């Protein structure tokens, strides 16, 4: 049974008249979106972690706790926790507490993060990018699996027979490793016996079949049990393909132009956007189009989880709500139907055709 999640970075959205909403409003709007996500049948709601003017997700555990108070069933997690610049003890306390508040619904995806703003902000050196993540993952896994913990490392003071409250049963908080395509990160997830969440933002998703194979082979070689694999990708759903493209493109363009300025990429063209929509791991279109493409990628990559980073950029709150409703009511039942009706082996990848 595949699980469906929605992911957000809590953007400062367009107020519908071209102006940004206030940051505090964006925070409260996200809570409404999560409440709706539960109502329409999503399995999880997950929030990123950034320290930038356009995203309000710097303290995701606080927002998740507020959502916990207004929901009963939906799992609440991160996408991703930038573990490299966090104290694993604090991550543990925040999410063990969230787990208690939500009656056992906390989950985590930890990663190195692709935005690196947190390094200078919290006084970490980017030169230690790899070492920081490795060390902090080691400590977090111990805190989640085997307390009391005795531990020492390079980047934080040692712990001796340390219990950290509140207690949670060993392995109770599902903790995944978010990976952007680095083979080393795939093998690291296998080494820690943690499930793998692939983030695929550009290019054809089939390319990642080799990473899935690498993960499975690494688990085998390291004598770990079989573990689930998930995918995080971008998307937007509207009643028709044309409408979805029309709403999404200007905000996609705006967000990727700003990323391009920062990283020295060329801004995306409309043709590149359409090519991503048709062939890439981007799920923009009508419920039928998006359902077909999700069912296809679920088979190709043997996924147990699909996280849609819904509505790219500053898409207004009202349209985000409409999208969540369509996604829950029309896309998910259709994906489940497609997956139930066609055997995985015989499925050829589906390519969306725009009307």
């Amino acid at each position: 049974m595949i699980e469906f999640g929605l992911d957000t970075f809590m953007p400062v959205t367009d107020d519908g008249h071209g102006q940004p909403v206030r940051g505090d409003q964006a925070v409260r709007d996200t809570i409404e979106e999560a409440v709706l996500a539960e109502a329409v049948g999503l399995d999880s709601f997950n929030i990123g972690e950034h320290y930038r003017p356009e995203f309000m997700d710097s303290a995701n555990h606080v927002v998740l706790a507020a959502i916990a108070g207004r929901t009963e069933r939906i799992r609440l997690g991160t996408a991703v926790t930038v573990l490299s610049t966090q104290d694993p003890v604090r991550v543990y306390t925040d999410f063990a507490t969230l787990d208690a508040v939500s009656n056992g619904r906390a989950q985590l995806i930890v990663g190195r993060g692709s935005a690196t703003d947190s390094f200078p902000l919290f006084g970490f050196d980017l030169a230690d990018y790899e070492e920081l993540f490795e060390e902090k993952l080691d400590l977090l896994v111990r805190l989640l699996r085997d307390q009391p913990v005795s531990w020492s490392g390079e980047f934080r003071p040692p712990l001796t027979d340390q219990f950290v409250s509140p207690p949670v049963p060993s392995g109770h908080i599902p903790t995944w490793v978010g990976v952007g395509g680095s083979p080393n990160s795939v093998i690291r997830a296998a080494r820690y016996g943690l499930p793998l969440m692939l983030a695929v933002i550009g290019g054809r998703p089939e390319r990642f079949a080799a990473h899935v194979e690498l993960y499975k082979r690494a688990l085998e070689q390291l004598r770990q049990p079989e573990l689930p694999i998930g995918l995080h990708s971008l998307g937007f759903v509207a009643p028709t393909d044309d409408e979805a493209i029309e709403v999404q493109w200007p905000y996609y363009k705006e967000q990727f132009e700003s990323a391009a300025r920062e990283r020295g990429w060329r801004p995306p063209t409309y043709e590149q956007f359409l090519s991503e929509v048709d062939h890439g791991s981007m799920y923009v279109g009508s419920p039928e189009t998006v359902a077909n493409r999700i069912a296809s990628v679920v088979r190709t990559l043997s996924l147990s989880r699909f996280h849609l980073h819904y509505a790219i950029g500053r898409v207004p709150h009202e349209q985000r709500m409409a999208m969540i409703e369509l996604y829950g009511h029309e896309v998910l039942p259709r994906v489940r139907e497609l997956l139930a009706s066609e055997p995985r082996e015989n499925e050829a990848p589906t390519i969306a055709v725009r009307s």
Partner: protein
Amino acid sequence: MCLGIVGAGKLGTTIARAAIEAGYDVAMSGSGAADEIALTVDVLAPGARALTTEEVVDHADIVVLAVPTHRFRELPPDLFAGKILIDAMNYWEPVDGIDDELSSPDAGTSAVVQAYFPSARVVKSLNQLGYHELDELRRPKGSADRIAVGAAGADRLAVRRVMRLIDRLGFDPVDAGPLENGVVLEPDGSPFAVTYTAEELSDLVAARATPAGKRIATSAPPRGALAARV
């Protein structure tokens, strides 16, 4: 023909796959022992050999440097003596941290790499496209939608050999001139992560590189100043 690749990450494994398909004998290494990358190579670049970095250099006469930019100085400066070294790295401050030498705008980052490995024949190339574009946009010679990849270097023979490699990998090679011209292939230069035809890329290099090249001639730090750091 043997191609060496130092770095078994996203870029290294992508180039390896392309080179194997093009008929090269590919040897690659990570930062440590060969068996640490054996599984990665087996799955992501089947047909390539996983070796140590020293073995890769011994084995190949063209070596691609595909490690994170902030780590290349962990390699010994005389490692690539006499070898053609393709600098496929890009310096991004948000990822690599602030590096005074590499952020110097005029000289180009490959000049820093050349100064660090003085006896290598450095050619800047294969840095220009994202790794998924390197994977997906390779085309046979003569295809209408074949895109261009530039190569810049002081050693003209080395540049020509890299251009033959680019061609065999599935791209139209463009001679971007001396190593200093590599600036136009870097992240703030225009060709970066854009799919140009050979003609478009040649025009861009010609239009942009000449003034930059002249500027370098007068404003680059004396070579000794860079070498002294080593």
